[in-house]
């Protein structure tokens, strides 16, 4: 079942994907060579196959990531400088000049980015200039609001920032722009909940709307993964959703949160309707992701996990005052960590394994501090904690290595002769 209409393949995206693949392969074969998985001869043969047989061409390919990294940092630094310049001189500049200068900056960034990408085939620096334009646009939304007396904590500003960024992310297939847009949407939901329920028992249940958004983001990521032209966005949505969800569940693992909810005197079924609407919408999106591939066991498992999280959100929204939720959310947190590791391992997806392991480590460390801080002498707390951390780091590293090794073995069995000879 196709959820998204199928746009024609974008030549720019295709070109970027090919180039990104070649550069990644050039880096990977160097790592395989260092690990003695392949011989020098095999490395050269692989590189020659992607048109990088010469040493200089290989060097050029491996430098590509550096250009990207430097250009993105340049865009962020330049954007921050321009924003600080405007913020510092905002009061002394005439209104028309302020807005005109910001608009001119945005247009100039896009124009330069367009010229570099389309005319000079300098995609990396051109993309960084588009990023600069987006940084200026997002900052302008808040600067203009500030000078025209719109409260800068207005949720609408987050939405306007995201609405202006999202089309550009799709137009240039830019993952970093998509990340900025997702951050804007998340900021909008959080700010809207804070604005609607600033200091009432409903505030806590309104946080569940953010959890529903996280589930929806994950499902949207999976739907993107089903379309070749949108696949590069799949993990941006999915990992963003996971990070938001893990952040929220992490907060709910603390008993103090639930003590405060109980102390507030909140009664059952007091949650605002928006919580149930958000849970319903997230359930629909998750169902759409499942129905897109109903026979896929991974998709089925994901759908079941999403349904479980949303059901828990509905239960918490309806009966919020229970001290046992801290224990439940601890179980959910660690279950999510293990599920992310398992998914990464099954699908040979290293970023998921690393995220799951980081989640696990943070969870264990938090519980250690939570339980032992008040029960041990300070010195003993740190000594035992340090030793435990070493043990955790050692265990996690062993687990990570074994998972990554399993992935590599399963994905790319070494050739019969060369690798063995090289290893020997």
């Amino acid at each position, binding site marked *: 079942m196709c959820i998204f209409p199928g746009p024609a393949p974008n030549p720019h995206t295709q070109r970027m994907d090919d180039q990104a693949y070649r550069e990644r392969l050039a880096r990977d074969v160097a790592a395989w060579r260092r690990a003695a998985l392949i011989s020098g001869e095999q490395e050269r043969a692989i590189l020659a196959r992607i048109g990088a047989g010469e040493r200089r061409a290989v060097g050029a390919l491996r430098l590509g990531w550096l250009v990207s990294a430097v250009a993105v940092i340049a865009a962020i630094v330049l954007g921050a400088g321009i924003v600080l310049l405007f913020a510092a001189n905002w009061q002394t500049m005439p209104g028309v000049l302020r807005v005109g200068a910001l608009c001119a900056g*945005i247009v100039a960034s896009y124009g330069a980015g367009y010229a570099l990408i389309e005319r000079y085939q300098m995609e990396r620096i051109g993309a960084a200039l588009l990023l600069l334009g987006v940084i200026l646009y997002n900052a302008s939304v808040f600067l203009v609001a500030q*000078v*025209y007396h719109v409260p800068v904590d207005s949720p609408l500003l987050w939405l306007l920032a995201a609405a*202006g960024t999202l089309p550009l992310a799709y137009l240039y297939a830019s993952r970093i722009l998509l990340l900025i847009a997702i951050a804007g949407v998340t900021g909008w939901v959080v700010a809207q909940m804070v604005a609607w329920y*600033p*200091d*009432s028992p409903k505030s806590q249940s309104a946080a569940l709307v953010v959890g529903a958004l996280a589930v929806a983001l994950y499902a949207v990521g999976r739907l993107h993964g089903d379309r070749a032209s949108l696949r590069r966005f799949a993990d941006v949505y999915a990992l963003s959703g996971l990070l938001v969800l893990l952040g929220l569940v992490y907060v709910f693992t603390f008993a103090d949160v639930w003590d405060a909810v109980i102390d507030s005197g909140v009664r059952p079924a007091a949650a605002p309707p928006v919580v149930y609407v958000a849970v319903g919408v997230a359930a629909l999106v998750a169902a759409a992701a499942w129905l897109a591939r109903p026979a896929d066991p991974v998709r089925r498992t994901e759908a079941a996990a999403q349904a479980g999280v949303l059901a828990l959100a509905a239960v918490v929204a309806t009966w919020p005052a229970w001290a046992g939720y801290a224990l439940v959310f601890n179980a959910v947190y660690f279950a999510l960590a293990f599920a992310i590791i398992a998914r990464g391992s099954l699908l040979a997806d290293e970023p998921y394994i690393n995220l799951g392991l980081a989640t696990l480590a943070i969870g264990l460390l938090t519980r250690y501090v939570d339980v032992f801080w008040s029960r041990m002498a300070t010195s003993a707390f740190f000594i035992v904690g340090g030793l435990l951390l070493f043990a955790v780091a050692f265990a996690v590293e062993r687990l990570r290595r074994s998972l990554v090794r399993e992935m590599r073995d399963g994905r790319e069995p070494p050739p019969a002769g060369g690798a063995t000879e090289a290893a020997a």
Partner: protein
Amino acid sequence: MTRGWKLALVAGAQIVILLSIIGVRQWAVWTGHTVVLKVATGDPRSLLQDQYPYVRYDISQIQRSSVRIAGKADGEVYVELQRGSDGYWHAVAIHDNGDHAFKGTVLIKGHALRPPLYPTQAPGSADVIYVTYGIEDVSIAQDAARDLPADGGHDIAVEVRIDRFGQPQPRRFIVDGRAFDLHRR
């Protein structure tokens, strides 16, 4: 449509969004009602930019017994203002919707907080409703410091435009009848 045109379209939409933020607020200024809200302090120097003031108005704390309350007076509320004989606008009612209880009044939108806010709050303060309007983060420009009186006991107010949705926009400070530029953090 080529990608260049699409990019131009997105850039144009972004600029329209920025201009619309200005337009909506300017519309509120042009078509709104002007009210003058008395500030709780009498020391104008405490409102200078370098003091990082958080301005408290007379209508920031409303005695339940002094107004008509229609609804819960909790969360989002509309405070009905009426011009007093002193020239300042005072709260006469609190609604949880946009209804008027009196003629010739103006509604300002705010957020009411449930007392007690702190365990140590003074007895009897439960009769007070605390309301914020989103116009508390204003200050007097530092340049005006030399023109401000150095002592306390002055009449200080903020002139505010309120649009038909109850959204306020502060315009300027008025100290003893004299206008001073207003800045927002």
